């Protein structure tokens, strides 16, 4: 086993959707301040695994979860824990950019407001800062009050990134965050991720192998609800141990 400081560690995670066994005995560790990419064919449970990290799977009716997910050593499925604190710590970027039905400014300020920051000056500062981090500031600084829905898809996804960062998370989850974007916008988002890994732990789900190779420091290969192989990106891509990993990377199963 390689040694690193795990930010999220998962042990014997089992997820059932009704009678359907979606995730089977998942045990993995997510390294701190690196980009971890979860790969695997569609329908293998990638998104479910991602959403179990911030307990967004709670929203799915009829789901049951057992096992351990620890963030910074804290068991997040413990009943006594305040789930909103977990989610504040773990930001999430959805598949499609989805601005909330309000202005650009209010989109970024939404999270901080929720968490009790109401002073205008402070909000202004936060909004500017994170729009800059997301590389959107110059494009929108003159129309912060206009509806976010008027932005292009690529801009919207960067806005979503700014919105996610504005609550100051430690971990960012991305569920195929570039799949709805044109190639140029997708490239920009990828670059953002590479910049951001200095300060954040990043977990991305993707089914695009080339993207995984470009971004990943660490790879988890999921197949039919099971972790087949996990480890440093170079090992997985260049010298996979498992036959199924080889087959997937070779393009034989998809």
């Amino acid at each position: 086993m390689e040694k690193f400081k795990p930010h999220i560690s998962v042990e014997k995670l089992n997820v059932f959707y009704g009678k359907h066994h979606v995730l089977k005995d998942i045990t993995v560790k997510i390294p701190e301040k690196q980009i971890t990419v979860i790969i695997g064919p569609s329908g293998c449970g990638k998104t479910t695994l991602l959403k179990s990290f911030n307990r967004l799977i709670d929203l799915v009716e009829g789901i049951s979860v057992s096992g351990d997910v620890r963030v910074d050593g804290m068991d997040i499925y413990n009943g006594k824990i305040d789930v909103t604190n977990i989610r504040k710590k773990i930001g999430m970027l959805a598949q499609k950019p989805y601005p909330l039905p309000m202005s650009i400014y209010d989109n970024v300020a939404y999270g901080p407001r929720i968490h009790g920051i109401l002073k205008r000056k402070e909000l202004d500062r936060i909004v500017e800062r994170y729009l800059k981090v997301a590389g959107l500031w110059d494009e929108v600084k003159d129309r912060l009050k206009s509806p976010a829905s008027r932005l292009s898809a690529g801009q919207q996804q960067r806005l979503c990134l700014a919105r996610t960062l504005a609550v100051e998370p430690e971990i960012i989850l991305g569920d195929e965050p570039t799949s709805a974007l044109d190639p140029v916008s997708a490239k920009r988002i990828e670059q953002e991720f590479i910049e951001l890994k200095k300060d954040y732990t990043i977990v991305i789900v993707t089914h695009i192998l080339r993207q995984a190779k470009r971004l990943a420091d660490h790879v988890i290969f999921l197949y039919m609800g099971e972790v087949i192989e996990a480890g440093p990106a170079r090992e997985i891509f260049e010298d996979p141990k498992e036959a199924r990993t080889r087959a997937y990377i070779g393009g034989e199963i998809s």
Partner: protein
Amino acid sequence: MNLKLTRKLKEVIASRLMLLITALSSMLIFVMILGLFLKARLILATQSLPELLLSTSWHPLRGEFGFYPFILGTIWVTVLAMFFSIPSCLLTSIYLTEYASAKIRAFIKPLIDLLAGIPSVVYGLWGILVVVPLVKDHIAPLFGYPTSGYCLLTGGFVLAIMVFPVLISVSEEVFRAVPHEVREISLALGATRWQTVKHAQMVPRIKGIIAAIVLGFSRAFGETMAVMMVVGNVAQVPSSVFQPAYPLPALIANNYGEMMSIPLYDAALLLAALLLLLIVLVFSVGARIVLLRIERRVV
């Protein structure tokens, strides 16, 4: 060839017939407005509309038809019903869409549908048996008002219950129309469920919610029987919720068809009906326009 012709003929005849029926039916609303207006015109010729609406003197025998007490009665009952029903219905619909499990929803939804089907005279009967004594013996004494129980408060409460199902289903629709992503995003940012409802679902959609409520009420505005059975029907300007009132629909129901010998009496009552119709029309069209606009902007 022959078969083909018959089929074609059938198609043509059927589509013409359907067009005719459809066109006639959609004209019905205009026919009603016109018919009521033609009758109501007779009284409008003797007195101006503002005079009729603002006068408090209702003495048909003397030819005085002041609608003010009845209009006020209608407004009061409606406002009271809104006061009772809006908060509880919004909360219930939020509970059903955002919090309740599928099992609970599957239990409660049919019950609410059932509530919608209960005839208004049954609500009225229940009002007489339960709400009237409750107001008379328990609620009014708390405030030190003597009352028979047949009063505005009772009418408003019974009407509120009748509005529940419509209001719950229209506001549920508004909340259900919120895309699942909005919910996810807000929760993923660490908001509580209630914060999500309040900031991401209610505030940006406040216009839609108001429109839905207005739409719900336009259906209840002219409700006649249940209210009439419990509200007392005294032609006066009420000064407290424990006093009886006489809403417009009750006025029509109690008097139309009788005392037709009094000149202009039927014209006055049909003017009341026309007023009800127009108010409902304005509110429901207005609410629909707002809702349509919102839909377009989101899509």
